[in-house]
């Protein structure tokens, strides 16, 4: 009995999305098959990684990853430039953590200042992320979007509670948009529909299915992403064909596994490698489920993931 290669054909493809300005612009998506099956599909753009910085010093990050940015993380502009110039970042993701009401409660004006500073410091594309407080994010991202006009950034995240303001700001200032829903494939589709019905071009949406860390629900994110890609590629659902984003830094680096010293838990082994492998494997899992854009923190984890991607394509 001879072996016949079992090739699948796909009715749809993932949208291609380019962001950033001029010669530093980058492109993600465009694949027309399930992840890394190049014997039956084309993968025009490899998954990319954005390095995360914050508008406030990362005092709450575990040692393993905080110390990497000692000396630069007290200034977002310095931090951004370090990521671009010393770490070779192709994209920088600025999280406006300080604007959260339970944190420093910085204002939208403060955010504008930070965004402007960071944009002056780098040429590579910028992703602007709110703190996750849906109400505050609406104002903060609106202001940030205006401040970043002309740089074709990625703005995020628009959620069911606050998408109207953020979408309007993204349209007015020509930015791409991250749409995030809570680990639910049907809600993800509905949010994309609502955003598109406001007049936002569906080709400029990136979906964040809501990430979870290894050991803390990662399989939920993994399966939601696999189901999203089934809808996009097999069912050719035009509302599900956006590229996928996985913002894994906060989830990974708040786990016990990334922070507990070996002395406390000897059966868990060395802390530094443990934190790095925790971020690396969380990332590789997302990559295998179809992630086109990762937001990560530790350079060694990023290196391992980039090496993996080169070996996969």
């Amino acid at each position, binding site marked *: *009995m*001879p*072996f*016949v*290669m*079992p090739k*699948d054909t796909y009715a749809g493809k993932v949208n291609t999305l380019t962001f950033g300005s001029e010669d530093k612009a980058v492109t993600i998506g465009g694949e027309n098959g399930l*992840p*890394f*099956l*190049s*014997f039956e599909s084309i993968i025009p753009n490899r998954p990319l990684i954005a390095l995360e910085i914050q508008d406030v010093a990362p005092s*709450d990050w575990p040692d393993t990853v905080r110390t990497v940015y000692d000396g630069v993380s007290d200034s977002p502009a310095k931090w951004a430039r370090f990521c671009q110039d010393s770490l070779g970042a192709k994209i920088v993701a600025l999280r406006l953590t300080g604007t959260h009401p*339970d944190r420093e409660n910085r204002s939208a004006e403060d955010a504008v200042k930070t965004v402007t500073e960071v944009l002056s410091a780098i040429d590579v594309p910028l992703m602007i992320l709110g703190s*996750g407080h849906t109400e505050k994010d609406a104002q903060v991202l609106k202001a940030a979007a205006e401040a970043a006009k002309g740089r074709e950034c990625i703005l995020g995240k628009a959620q069911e509670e606050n998408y109207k303001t953020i979408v309007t700001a993204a349209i007015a200032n020509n930015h791409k948009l991250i749409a995030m829903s809570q680990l639910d494939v049907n809600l993800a589709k509905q949010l994309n529909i609502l955003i598109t019905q406001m007049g936002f071009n569906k080709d400029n949406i990136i979906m964040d299915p809501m990430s*979870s860390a*290894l*050991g*803390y*629900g*990662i*399989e*939920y994110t*993994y*399966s939601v992403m*696999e*189901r999203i890609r*089934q809808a996009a590629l097999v069912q050719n659902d035009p509302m599900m064909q956006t590229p996928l984003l996985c913002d894994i830094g906060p989830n990974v680096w*708040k*786990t*016990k*596994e990334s922070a507990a010293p070996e002395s406390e838990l*000897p*059966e*868990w*082994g*060395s*802390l530094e*490698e*443990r934190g*790095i*492998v*925790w971020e*690396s*494997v969380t990332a*590789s*899992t997302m990559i*295998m489920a179809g992630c086109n854009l990762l937001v990560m923190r530790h350079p*060694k984890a990023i290196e*391992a*993931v980039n*090496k*993996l991607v080169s*070996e*996969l*394509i």
Partner: protein
Amino acid sequence: MALSGVEIFKHLPKTNCKKCGYPTCLAFAMKLAALQESTDKCPDLSEEAKKFLGAAAEPPIKGITLGPKGVKVGEETVLFRHEKKFVNPCPIALNIKDTEGADAITKHIADVNSSEIDRVGQMLRVDLICVTDESGDAARFAAVVKQVADGAPNAGLILNSSRPASIEAAIGHCADKKPLVYGANAENLDAMVKIAKEKKVALGIFAKGLDALSDLSEKVKGMGVTDIVLDSGARTAKEMVEEYTMIRRAALKKSFKPLGFPVISFVGRDDSTFEAVVASIGIMKYASIIVVNSIEKWKTLALLTLRQNIYTDPQVPMQVEQKIYKIGDANENSPLLVTTNFSLTYFIVRGEIENSKVPCWLAIMNVEGLSVLTAWAAGKFVAGSIANFIKDSEAPKLVAKKELILPGYVSVLSGSLEDKLGDGWKVVVGPREANQLPAFLKGRA
């Protein structure tokens, strides 16, 4: 594809004699199709029909048991975990070269023996050891196999050699412990098959590419060995994803028997972190056994956790044990919170309490793994049952002040819960979202 009831019915006597215990042949056929009955029940089945139905009832991917503890591999039925649970979590194997020194080997064995960890109440460990013949010296290979078999009596063994003489020399030390003999190829086939048949062990076969592998597999099966483990020679991450996908698709969607067997993946990399990352690809994409070169504790923690996550039943939520968990240096003045035993809920709430740096008692109630709202809607997380749980637990003894913090989503229960608790208990409504816990707890401190 398994046969449908109608297809099976075509091969039955169609007499409706009821000897099988079912009213009609069609009813019996439907049971056979659901794998809930055996063809043995029908006394009037022709030999030919029995053979045909027997072959069709075989699982598309063979199940093989390895090692003294009976680790099972294979038997997979789907390509995507969201369709149906992946069946047999892939065991991790530590690779030991027979050229390594005795001390190094002793340490490897000790590492495997002490590799067990507890993850959400499941005991996970490095289950297998692969001894690799690098020396070309049969006596040396046999000696190392003996050292490993004696030193790690609970671990399953993979004998990795393409020299039949080396396998012959070594197999005596472990044949009764269900080892995997790996290294059969087109050149050494006859000798390796002979050993596998004599010693009744599973045989790992290698051929580069799926055409050659299919041919080899068919040949081996024809020679009478049916416990086969496949190695297509995939070594890069790209080859792994592509070839393991093709093998599983062929087995499941095309009923291609030659590739209907478990797959062994040799993942060796110089950098241990990168080796973990490549191994993770194998875990997600269909490897049945994963052989790594090192098993540092941080690495096995990550890989075993990922394996546990990927092999979780998507229908059955993961649950944690019902009990009062102490978080931080909690004492009789620390806050007492209650929530459900859905493991995601537990981990997230626990994580936020830890972030707050406020030591607490976290009362976790068994609601069969449902989240707070789902459990409430199902009537499992209601005032009466919560009150009973708290009063029967050690909580009243742990806290000086009888105050219970309730998840904000079920604030509607607070009055009734206070009544049912009685005894001076006070119920405080906590935040709706876990990420509001740090602010809430710090505010109360």
